[in-house]
């Protein structure tokens, strides 16, 4: 089912939950709503579900405006963060509830519930009470209940955030596979950007009720249009420096008290045109740690001191101070970096980002 949100707005007296959200979701697509807590993800989702009435704007399914359609008539299934299972019913009672309300014949209900439960791997738990299930099993029941009525649109509100890290990884894969197999259009709300990056076809990044960006994951990662998107997408997050980009002997150089780096022309021209400071962004993986500065890396090399070392397993996340300017880089474990070491860094400035400090818009992609 195709979903279109047009200037969708929800406000309560003073508070604005969602502010003129406009986006479209193609049939069979999985779109993630990503953003920090309180940015309006749930609000937007509940408007799509029909639980909240929009203050302004429209929601259309397959070109039909559904603002006035009741939740039960929208052909949607929803999975909640709290699972929202009915604790006084068994697993069968929960999954069959939507079908029983449709007054389907008992045999049909039984068959469809069993099919869905088997698909979710809980086929042998149907007689259990909800309280007798683990968190992961409850999550599967919730998913089963959403799927059993064969919805046109699936809504997920942070469905995995109560699970442990390992289970979350498994369920992530399962939900994605299921969604692809069944081809159901889905909206997946999360504040975990790894979840959004790995699962979504497109990501809508939100902040304070406003849609900041809506694009495929790679585009958000490589071509962030705003400072917020650049900072929010990517883990560990992008490093930012206040610099002035100027022309020196035909080269572009990003300069500050601590930094002096050569910038390729295709990256820096617009930043150079700005009078005064700009914000330069460099991702942790775009900084290499080397033993000695090679002549080839002339103008791309800086030295700093390691101030924090966080082992991540395969790599260390090292906090480095360059004359008082902080950044974080990923360093191979075999280097054995320790706090206090002096470190030589080579910057891959051909992947650097630049932002206007006033408007926070990108000087490359906006």
């Amino acid at each position, binding site marked *: 089912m195709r979903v279109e949100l047009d200037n969708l707005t929800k406000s309560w007296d003073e508070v604005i939950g969602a502010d003129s959200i406009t986006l479209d979701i193609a049939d069979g697509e999985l779109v993630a709503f990503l953003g920090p807590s309180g940015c309006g993800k749930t609000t937007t989702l*509940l408007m799509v*579900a*029909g*639980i909240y009435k929009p203050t302004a704007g429209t929601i259309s399914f397959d070109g039909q405006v559904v603002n006035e359609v*009741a*939740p*039960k008539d*929208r052909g*949607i*299934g*929803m999975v*909640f*963060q*709290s*699972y*929202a*299972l*009915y*604790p*006084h019913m068994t697993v069968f009672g929960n999954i069959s*509830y*939507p079908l029983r*309300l*449709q007054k389907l014949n008992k045999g049909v209900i039984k068959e469809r519930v069993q099919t869905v439960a088997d698909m979710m791997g809980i086929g042998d738990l149907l007689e259990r009470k*909800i*309280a007798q299930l683990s*968190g992961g099993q*409850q999550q599967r029941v919730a998913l089963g*209940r959403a799927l059993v*009525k064969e919805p046109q649109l699936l809504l997920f509100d942070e469905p995995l*955030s*109560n699970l442990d890290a390992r289970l979350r990884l498994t369920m992530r894969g399962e939900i994605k596979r299921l969604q692809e197999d069944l081809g159901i259009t889905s909206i997946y709300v999360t504040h975990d950007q790894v979840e959004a990056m790995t699962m979504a076809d497109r990501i809508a990044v939100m902040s304070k009720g406003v849609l900041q960006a809506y694009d495929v994951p790679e585009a958000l990662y490589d071509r962030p249009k705003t400072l917020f998107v650049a900072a929010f997408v990517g883990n560990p997050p992008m490093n930012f420096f206040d610099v002035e980009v100027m022309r020196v002997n035909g080269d572009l150089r990003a300069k500050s008290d601590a930094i002096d780096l050569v910038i390729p022309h295709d990256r820096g021209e617009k930043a150079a045109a700005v009078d005064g400071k700009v914000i330069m962004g460099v991702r942790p993986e775009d900084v290499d740690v080397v033993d000695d500065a090679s002549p080839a890396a002339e103008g791309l090399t800086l030295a700093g001191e390691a101030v924090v070392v966080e082992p991540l397993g395969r790599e260390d996340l090292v906090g480095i101070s360059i004359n008082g300017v902080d950044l974080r880089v990923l360093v191979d474990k075999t280097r054995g970096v320790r706090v206090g070491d002096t470190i030589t860094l080579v910057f891959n400035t051909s992947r650097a980002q630049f932002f206007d400090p006033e408007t926070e818009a990108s000087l490359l992609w906006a």
Partner: protein
Amino acid sequence: MTTVETAPPRPAAGPIPRSRQKMGRYFAYGFLILSIIPILVGYAWLIIATVSARTQGLLPKNAEGGIGGFTLSNWDFVFESAIWNAMLNSLLIAVFMVIGVGLASTSGGYALSRMKFAGRKTFLTGTLVLHAFKAEMLLIAIFFVLRFLGDIPIIGGFIGFNTVGGVALVMVALELPLGIWLMKGFFDNLSWDMERAALIDGASRFRVWWQIMVPQVRPGIAALSLFTFIVGWNAYLVPFTFTIGTKVANMPVFLNQLISDTAPVNWNLVAAVGLFQMIPLIIFFIFTQELLLNIYAGGSKGT
């Protein structure tokens, strides 16, 4: 080098010796038993008195002053129709109250907890204020209301002045503020998500209330029912004020008539009637206690 002042070493927090643990337990039990003795003695007297002709202290006495003189004559009243009539009236009042207060509080509490409507806040504070008015202050006003209701054709005969229905109606009204607030509190604690899930699953608002929300507040309903039943069963002031004669008297009123008759009071008979009055309460409690203690676990994890 600077020296750091240290606190004096604490005694090692080893396990408390077994004997001391035991002592502590004996002491606790001893204290508890001592403090409930006055009540236990009271109950003991009540039960002994109902089967004795006379008592002195806790001892049943016969005519010669020796121990003995057991008799069932105090219980003769169970063969009289008056007591069964009073019992029936008490039961009618209590059951009517349980149903009336239960229905109104469960639906009203839900609406006040979950729905937005004009005057909601005023209504909430209003009911609280109303609860502060004691029934005594309202007796005269209620009298006029009941007289008015009694003049309504057909139903007036059931809910007017000097009817069991009228008494029950007044008792329900007096009990509602508490019931509504209690049930609102229970509904406030339920997650919105469950309700939203049910709406999406295809339930109407009424069905959500009845099939999804009400089952979650069953412990609350049980508590309210038990409480209301006791209030209705023991109701004295309202029935006493708004009923005349023995036909519509309930148990407490009947009991009071035994005491205030001009003849010398037979306290052993009063004890027997009092004990008799308690029996339905005990039965009712046995049926609801499981529900009361069984607070639902689980279903929703996290927020």
